[in-house]
């Protein structure tokens, strides 16, 4: 692929170029353009402006990603695939400089390719699937915005940009689930998803804060203590783990230590500390490894992290626990998973992109990023593995008894995410990421195929116009194998991948996970127990996958479907494109596994080159996590055993499903008997083990009680106070009025009355009677006489 002329490739490590930024800008600008131009031209060109712009933006992003990958990432040596793109500084708090930046390393590269690849395909599908919908500009704008947020999340170089992306994907999920906001179910589901996510986000934020605190806080350290927070100098670059210990790699001149929010810095710090402590375990405050080449001085910052305790819990365990909770919120793990089945109220492309391939994998990504941190706390790893196992089981059991096709797939996603968490708990983050990739393909394929099926069936399902979820009821389907051949085979392929049949990619990734778990020796819980549970889960997985397959495409005599006219009928262009996308994804679901994850024991090479390709690609990210592990060379017995077991279990599940559901009418009595016998179990499974009721008891009811209490307080106290004040004001007003009337008016009236009275009295002097005049004169004379008398005497 051609590249824009710079010197060399597009990126020159250490990169300060723009290309990483373009990865973000294309979807962001696409979102803006779609929103603005799509709305402006919503009525022209049959409303295709918005989808066209969105798809174009996605393709641009995909092309950019591919170019960067092939021209910059691959050519460079394995240990040098770290490209940084600082964007802008945010603020300085105490001793920490918080800035926004991007980093492209093997892990983020894999995620970027996954997101852009699947995203482009799903955008294309959605462009035709959402034909005739209202509000397409909004939909596609949010879809692009979502891709932007997800890319920001995976490209983040530290907790700050990660959290931005984290929140943004949550918001976009809310907008997209609630796309048909006029439907109560959709709106409620969106809110539920957001709120449950929020719980996780809160835990994540607290976890990050505690991590920062554990590293020594943000306070500015001066004086003697500052000398302890030193820097590690290297002659040539950052330190990376090799078989011979820490070796410099080109680029960085020094690794700053102390509190940091940057992933790579944090990882380097921790690994250095671990190494130094191993060298001098008794005195952690001395500069341990006096390595002239490395000039290492010890610092206590990360030491605090690993040796602090919170009550009786190790500090790191608490931090990891909180981070796990945050990841569980996004990735629909126990206990925060009940939002995912309800999120199926959104359009099918949304379910495919967000709730199968990308958003829900953000949690897995976070834990993979921080695997070095978790590696320091075996207790935390145990918890991760246990949660993953339980979630896988709960998801599988729930998927088994659902009748709504999309809900089956949703619970299936929950279950498969559990598998990924198991991988992380087993310390095999690479296996987890591998499963992310394969799951992305087959789950997206399943969802999009489901979308085609639902569209095909909706026209002939009674009542589907008002209640779309009726069309998703698998009991309404059946006998569609001949009507939708391509879809059928694609679905079959994806189901095989899901189930773990050996020819599809799910087998490879699942097998890798189970093998890692089997060889994991750090967990505090017995791994055989977990493996047993996971084995049962795999059986159930295969069972429900093929159950859905047979219910949709067989189970009944073949029938025709009426395809909606807006897709051009059965063979219209839209229909063909969508089917093509589904088929491509199905092919990916088959091919990706062997391509990226050919198991070591199937190949003849030894040592590191025996690692599956993807794992080898990701190895710089995960190896060297303390305590140092050798390159995992699992015993061949275990590997073969796992593979065989997995294949058998999957095949068993397929066989049972086929027996029960291929010819549904014949087996109806059997199934009914089974249903009656296990009715209680069925109810338990169907509600996701009563997760919603648990939420209600634990969160909703207390919140409502609190709200009632607050309302009561508001009414009894605040309102009373306000009313009292108002009444007081009223009384004062009345008093004032009274005073005004009586006193002021009284004075005024009194004055006038006095004047009148005085006038009246004065007027009496002039009564017209002579007598009084005479009297007046007489009185005057008398007065004068008296006066003269007294003055004279």
């Amino acid at each position: 692929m051609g590249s824009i002329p710079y010197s060399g490739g597009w990126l020159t490590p250490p990169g300060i170029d723009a290309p990483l930024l373009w990865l973000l800008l294309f979807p962001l600008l696409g979102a803006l353009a779609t929103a603005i131009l799509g709305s402006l031209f919503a009525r022209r060109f049959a409303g295709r402006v918005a989808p066209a712009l969105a798809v174009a933006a996605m393709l641009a992003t995909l092309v950019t990603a591919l170019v960067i990958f092939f021209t910059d990432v691959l050519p460079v040596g394995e240990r040098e695939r770290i490209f940084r793109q600082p964007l802008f500084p945010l603020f300085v708090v105490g001793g920490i400089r918080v800035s926004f930046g991007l980093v492209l390393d093997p892990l983020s590269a894999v995620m970027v390719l996954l997101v852009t690849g699947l995203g482009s395909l799903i955008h294309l599908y959605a462009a035709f699937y959402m034909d005739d919908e209202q509000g397409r500009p909004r939909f596609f704008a949010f879809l692009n915005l979502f891709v932007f947020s997800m890319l920001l999340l995976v490209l983040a170089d530290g907790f700050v940009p990660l959290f931005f992306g984290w929140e943004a994907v949550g918001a976009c999920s809310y907008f997209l689930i609630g796309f048909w906001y006029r439907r109560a179910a959709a709106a409620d589901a969106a809110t539920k998803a957001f709120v449950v996510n929020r719980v996780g986000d809160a835990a994540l934020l607290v976890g990050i804060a505690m991590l920062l605190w554990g590293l020594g806080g943000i306070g500015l350290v001066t004086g003697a203590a500052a000398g302890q927070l030193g820097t590690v100098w290297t002659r040539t670059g950052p330190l990376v783990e090799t078989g011979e210990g820490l070796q410099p790699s080109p680029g960085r001149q020094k690794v700053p230590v102390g509190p940091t929010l940057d992933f790579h810095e944090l990882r380097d710090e921790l690994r250095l500390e671990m190494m130094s402590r191993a060298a001098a375990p008794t005195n952690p405050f001395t500069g341990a490894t006096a390595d002239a080449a490395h000039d290492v001085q010890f610092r206590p910052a990360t030491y605090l992290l690993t040796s602090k305790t919170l009550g009786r819990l190790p500090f790191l365990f608490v931090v990891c626990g909180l981070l796990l909770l945050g990841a569980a919120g996004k990735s629909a793990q126990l206990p925060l998973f009940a939002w995912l089945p309800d999120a199926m109220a959104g359009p099918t492309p949304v379910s495919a992109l967000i709730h199968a391939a990308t958003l829900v994998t953000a949690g897995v990504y976070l834990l993979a990023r921080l695997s070095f941190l978790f590696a320091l706390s075996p207790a935390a790893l145990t918890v991760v593995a246990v949660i993953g196992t339980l979630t896988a089981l709960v998801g599988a059991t729930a998927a088994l008894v659902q009748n709504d096709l999309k809900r089956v797939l949703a619970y299936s996603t929950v279950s498969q995410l559990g598998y990924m968490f198991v991988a992380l708990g087993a310390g095999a983050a690479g296996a987890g990421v591998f499963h992310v990739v394969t799951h992305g393909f087959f789950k997206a394929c399943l969802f999009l195929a489901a979308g085609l099926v639902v569209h095909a069936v909706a026209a002939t399902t009674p009542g589907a116009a008002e209640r779309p979820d009726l069309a998703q009821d698998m009991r309404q389907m059946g006998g569609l194998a001949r009507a939708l051949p391509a879809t059928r085979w694609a679905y079959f392929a994806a189901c095989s991948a899901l189930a773990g049949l050996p020819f599809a990619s799910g087998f490879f990734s699942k097998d890798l996970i189970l093998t890692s778990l089997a060889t994991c020796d750090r967990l505090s819980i017995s791994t055989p127990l977990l493996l047993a549970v996971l084995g049962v889960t795999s059986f159930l997985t295969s069972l429900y996958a093929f159950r859905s397959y047979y219910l949709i495409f067989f189970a009944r005599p073949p029938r025709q479907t009426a395809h909606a006219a807006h897709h051009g009928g059965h063979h219209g262009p839209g229909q063909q494109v969508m089917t093509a996308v589904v088929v491509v994804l199905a092919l990916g679901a088959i091919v990706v596994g062997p391509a990226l994850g050919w198991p070591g024991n199937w190949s003849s090479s030894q040592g590191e080159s025996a690692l599956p390709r993807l794992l080898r690609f990701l190895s710089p990210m995960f190896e060297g996590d303390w305590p140092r592990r050798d390159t995992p060379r699992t015993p061949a017995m275990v590997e073969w055993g796992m593979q065989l077991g997995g294949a058998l279990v999957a095949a068993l599940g397929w066989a049972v499903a086929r027996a029960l559901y291929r010819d549904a009418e014949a087996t109806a009595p059997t199934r009914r008997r089974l249903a009656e016998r296990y009715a209680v179990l069925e109810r338990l499974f169907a509600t996701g083990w009563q997760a919603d009721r648990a939420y209600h008891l634990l969160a909703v009811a207390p919140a409502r009680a609190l709200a009632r209490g607050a309302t009561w307080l508001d009414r009894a106290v605040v309102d009373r106070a306000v009313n009292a004040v108002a009444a007081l004001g009223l009384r004062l007003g009345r008093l004032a009025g009274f005073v005004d009337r009586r006193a002021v008016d009284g004075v005024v009236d009194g004055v006038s009355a006095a004047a009148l009275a005085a006038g009246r009295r004065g007027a009496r002097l002039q009564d017209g009677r002579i007598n009084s005049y005479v009297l007046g004169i007489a009185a005057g004379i008398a007065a004068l006489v008296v006066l003269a008398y007294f003055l004279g005497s």
Partner: protein
Amino acid sequence: MPGVETFVFYGLAALIVAGAAGVAFSRNILHAAFLLLLTLSGTAGLYFFLGADFVGVAQILIYVGGILVLLLFAVLLTNRIGDVRMSNRNVGYATTIPVALLLASFLVSAMALASWPHTTPVAAPTTARLGDAFLREYLLPFELVSLVLLMALVGAMVVARRAVRDRGDADEGALPAAPASSSVGGAP
């Protein structure tokens, strides 16, 4: 031993005071008029007592013979005959009496307290001397008084006559159909 003059004085004084009291307090206005007559006569007597013969005579002639008669005419003209007896109610004693008493007390005490000369003039006819005074020292007042008399005459006539002339016009308060002409000296 008190002389004759004392008796005379006090007798006349008693008449005067009685008469004046009667004028002040009598219910019947006609009685009041006649008591006034008494008073005026008493005063005339006192004038004689004081040797002012001309003044005394003038008093009788003018005051009693003229003014009093005029008053009587007025009384009789302005009251219906039957009402004469009861028409003279008084008002306002409450305010008048105190004032009057006050005045009287101070006046009397002032006049009594003062020491007056005690001369005993010779009784002699005064007419000539009065005449002399009128035409020499008091010529101007004398002429003015005559003018005043003239004005009074004319004025009285004017006042009385206008009433007569206005008879034909709007007569407020007049008794209906009573075309009696009344002049100053005519019968009602």
